């Protein structure tokens, strides 16, 4: 059976890395190449790198920088940020990036997901869904790195993404980003019950137990930022990742293996 994946998320901001809080810039972490090199040495299952400036400022993937990061990875890497067309996806995949994550483009040109899945296979196409709870208590999907409220229900949007050909859903709770108070289990359950493709939960992990909670709630993989880049009450920058044996023990008996 497949092993449960535990995935660090790195956010590119300018030429460095930033850890955000509720999608606002918060803490400068340092040099991306160095961070990726350390995660490679720690043998992480997979790495997600998101350029959080790209869709806010309207530029495409910074290929040169991304390729340099992929060069440090002896594991699958997923890139997201500013992807708007097939040529960019083709280029990224040919440079050794395993998967691309689409977000804003799914709203503006849904056919991109369809075409990309057809040309490169669903396994390479992740649809990222950023969710925030509105004042009326209802969840809504946001694009442009949390800037634009699309007024769509995340469950309906996940089903739509799956039907377009997405191979995975990355479900990111904006309100919990950087808060370290645990994942949004209710949201994870609702989305993973609605689709038969893997759901990667993101946003809120502060302790290892949070990871297994998300898996028990129905997530197929867990992604986290703060948990793997910050340490202690003062949130000092320290890159860490649990040994494989510890993760296997953590997930034993929780959730599914697919």
């Amino acid at each position, binding site marked *: *059976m497949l092993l449960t994946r535990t995935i660090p998320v790195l956010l590119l901001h300018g030429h460095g890395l930033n850890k955000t809080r509720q999608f606002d810039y918060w803490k400068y972490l340092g040099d991306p190449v160095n961070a990726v090199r350390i995660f490679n040495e720690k043998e992480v299952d997979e790495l997600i790198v998101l350029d959080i400036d790209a869709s806010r400022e309207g530029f495409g993937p910074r290929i040169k920088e991304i390729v340099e990061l992929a060069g440090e990875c*002896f594991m699958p890497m997923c890139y997201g940020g500013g992807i708007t067309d097939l040529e960019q996806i083709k280029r990224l995949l040919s440079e050794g990036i395993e998967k691309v994550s689409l977000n804003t483009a799914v709203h503006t040109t849904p056919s991109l997901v369809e075409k990309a899945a057809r040309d490169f296979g669903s396994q390479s196409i992740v649809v990222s869904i950023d969710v925030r709870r509105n004042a009326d208590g209802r969840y809504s999907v946001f694009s442009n790195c949390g800037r634009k409220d699309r007024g769509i229900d995340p469950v309906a949007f996940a089903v739509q993404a799956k039907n377009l050909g997405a*191979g995975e859903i990355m479900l990111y709770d904006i309100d919990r980003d950087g808060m370290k108070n645990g994942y949004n289990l209710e949201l994870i359950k609702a989305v993973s019950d609605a689709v038969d*493709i893997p759901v990667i939960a993101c946003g809120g992990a502060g302790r290892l137990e949070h990871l297994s909670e998300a898996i028990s709630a129905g997530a197929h993989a867990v992604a986290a930022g703060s948990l793997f880049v910050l340490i202690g009450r003062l949130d000092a920058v320290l890159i860490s990742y649990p040994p494989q044996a510890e993760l296997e023990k953590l997930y034993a008996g929780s959730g599914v293996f*697919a």
Partner: protein
Amino acid sequence: MIAIVDHGYANIRSVDRMLRRLNQIPVVAERPSDLKRASKIILPGIGAFDGPMRRLRELGFIDALHEHAIVRQRPILGICVGMQIMTRRSEEGEAAGLGWIEGECRRFRPPAEAKLRVPHMGWNKVAIAPDAKLFAAFGKEAKYYFVHSYYVALDDKSLNAATCSYGADFCASFQKGNIFGVQFHPEKSHRFGLGLLKAFAEL
């Protein structure tokens, strides 16, 4: 010298990077004549069966590969679809395979109640056959990264070098004399993949 065959349906760059980590300077073979000086060949592949197979024919690689693997019996390693095209055929396409390995490729058809998704994608563990030459002595922790919807079904199970399980057991690696195939991606499997490529480089 190791040559990596570039038929356009593969992640050449990742394989190249891992070999360089092992202090190998591989040659990327874009035409058959590039294989002349190769002592070993890596045949990578992603995507569907017919793509790389047709492209190898168009580029005139078939005879050069046959010369290396069958006539001279020099080591060759197929990765993912590169492994699959060493068999006779696949349910995935129309093209004939290289036919070096007695077997064919079938699609995963897990029973609905198993709730297993296809493709089989992610990290999985394998059971290694006692005489498998490429699998270094990692303990129970060894795991490999897989992305595939089709698998090799061998006629002769004695060629099986490693077994993986996804709904049912399937061949994660075969070995027939100088011909090796792995279904997973060693170039994306940390030190476990590095160890495998090292063993191949040192054959």
